[in-house]
């Protein structure tokens, strides 16, 4: 095994990763910490799949914050292509350059000049590869399942060789290998080629204890008993089979923050009814959870 550089914040162990992320108020279990540690040390991209709102994006932010690295985020969407993710030529400036020098330069000179790095607009992937410094940048490729299959093809060279080829300039190689985190909500199956290049982790819904811990870390003003009440209610709600969209941790945090802002100290039927829209994001779910069902959920042990 070659001696690969790792971020100083993470030392050389899984425990160090857990501690560093804990300082960033990110509650992490050993499995995910091992995945992050191996991604750092093996310089392999980490693909994280899981339920929406359960901390896939947050871990990239926490890793960047913990190591003092720059977080470079690429939000995927249908139609994302090389010009939005990798690089693009700055056409207006190229035109201006041509106009300015059309009399004192030859065509060949102009061509060489306008296709130089000076006129290159760097998009997130290229910026991540060009990162220079003692700390590896964190590249977050978020919700990759939203992008087209063609975009996965584009990523292959970037993720396996950490280089990109710009025909007019040549191949640009990363001097500092970025820490790459890819996330997916599994709305479609990602290609085998991309999976083969990545380490893999899955984040499901947290246990009640973990959710209480998350609430306490993220909302320090929340009393312990109230955090337990909230987590217990959300856990029971998640267990309902007829929900179209189960609330994630992000929804729990929003809801708890809203209850705190309203000055609540414990779960009351009225306040739950009024704020249920923060937990349930589907109109049919909201409709079906009227007073009686909510009361039975609140009353459950």
């Amino acid at each position, binding site marked *: 095994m070659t001696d690969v550089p790792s971020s100083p914040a993470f030392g050389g162990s899984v425990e160090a990763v857990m501690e560093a992320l804990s300082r960033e108020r990110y509650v992490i279990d050993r499995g995910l910490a091992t995945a992050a540690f191996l991604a750092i040390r093996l310089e392999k991209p980490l693909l994280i799949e899981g339920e929406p709102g359960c901390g896939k994006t947050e871990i990239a932010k926490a890793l960047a914050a913990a190591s003092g690295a720059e977080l470079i985020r690429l939000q995927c969407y249908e139609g994302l292509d090389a010009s939005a993710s990798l690089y693009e030529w700055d056409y207006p400036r190229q035109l201006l350059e041509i106009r300015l020098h059309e009399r004192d330069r030859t065509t060949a000179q102009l061509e060489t000049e306008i296709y130089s790095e000076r006129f290159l607009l760097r998009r997130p992937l290229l910026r991540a590869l060009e990162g220079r410094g003692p700390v590896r940048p964190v590249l977050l490729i978020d919700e990759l399942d939203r992008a087209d299959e063609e975009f996965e093809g584009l990523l292959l060279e970037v993720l396996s060789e950490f280089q990109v080829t710009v025909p007019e300039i040549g191949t640009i190689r990363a001097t500092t290998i970025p820490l790459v985190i890819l996330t997916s909500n*599994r709305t479609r*199956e990602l290609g085998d080629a991309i999976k*083969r290049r990545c380490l893999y982790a899955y984040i499901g819904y947290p246990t009640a204890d973990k959710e209480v811990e998350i609430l306490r870390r993220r909302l320090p003003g929340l009393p312990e008993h109230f955090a337990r009440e909230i987590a217990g209610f959300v856990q029971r709600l998640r267990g309902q089979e007829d929900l179209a969209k189960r609330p994630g941790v992000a929804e729990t945090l929003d809801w708890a923050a809203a209850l705190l802002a309203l000055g609540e100290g414990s779960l009351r039927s009225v306040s739950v009814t009024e704020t249920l829209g923060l937990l349930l994001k589907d109109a049919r779910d909201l409709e079906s959870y009227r007073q009686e069902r909510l009361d039975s959920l609140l009353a459950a042990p």
Partner: protein
Amino acid sequence: MNRSPPFPTGARVLSRVQGFLDRLRAEGVQVGVAAGVDLGHALDLVPTLDRPAFRESCRVTLAKSPADLAKLDWVFDEYWSSPATVPVPPASEEGKVPNRRERRGSPGPMPPRARPPRTEEVREMIEGRYSPRAPPTGHALAPVSPSELRRLRSGARRFRRRVATLPGRHWHRAPTGTIDLRRTARRSLRTGGEWVELSHRDRTARRADLVVLWDVSGSMREHTGPLFALVHTLHRVIRRTRVFAFGHEIEEVSGLFQGQSYARALPELTGRLAGTGGGTQIAHCLGEFRRHWGAVLRSSTTVVIVSDGWDLGETEVLGSELERLRHQTAQVVWVNPYAAEKGFVPATAALKVALPFLDLLASPADFPRPHAPRHLGRGRSWAG
């Protein structure tokens, strides 16, 4: 006290790790050489005598889906709890023991589940998952003719155009439309920066996004051959297609279609459906689909339910499940193998309940027809 056997150290680890990889492959987890190398590198970094750390390293490097994780967990416990390497079943043609993947199809995107108990009874139960209320009848997948396949493909392409009419985020060059400033500027470089000719662009229609729910219960047995041809064609023609087989339970079988020609997929599916039988529970299966794969549904998704509508489940639940499905997706199409028959009326309880939530009730025979209605009308037959 129940103690784990001593963990092997040194060179023995390598041979046992290799055995572990072979065991995983036999269970249908696709572990490549690169993943094995990754595990080797990972084991340099974590203490191999630390069992939880070793397990996590295996999970991170070898698994590539939630289904892989679930399999890896129980194979890990089984393999690393015994002092000797668990032998991999023989793979000779004659006495071939089908692995889990061969018996159950490709792993779907099920969330990690609790490890199943290691008993033979459970394996028997999994074998009969489609037909707990009827003996397995099997499905003989009679091949359709090449000309019929060609006609099906043409029909599927027409269907693709019909279900992909919304404008997407993609842009493409077009003779008319909005002015493409970037392309115009780039083209002007050829003429010294003069904007001699304007380029235009337009939005490309969003790609069809299809989910096929295919009833493979006993009552569908005689139609399975043509229906398989239809499902295979839809999967081949429409790139974003996921296929789920259901009867009493539902599971994803997209992997069996992936990259497989019709001729190659046919025998594999025949073997795969050998243990299926009667006892359809459509409502239950739709509920399971929503719970486990609900995230695959988008507002642009077209859901195609291929079923005869013979259902043993609760029709009220079916109504609410279909209403949800209709609410979440662009359209719901029901393909009934009997719909083309003369005098057909949707008389089964399930179809009666389903009709208000359908955009189209079609027959497999409607797909090859060149003149299908342009607009999908709710509850209308293809020909009507």
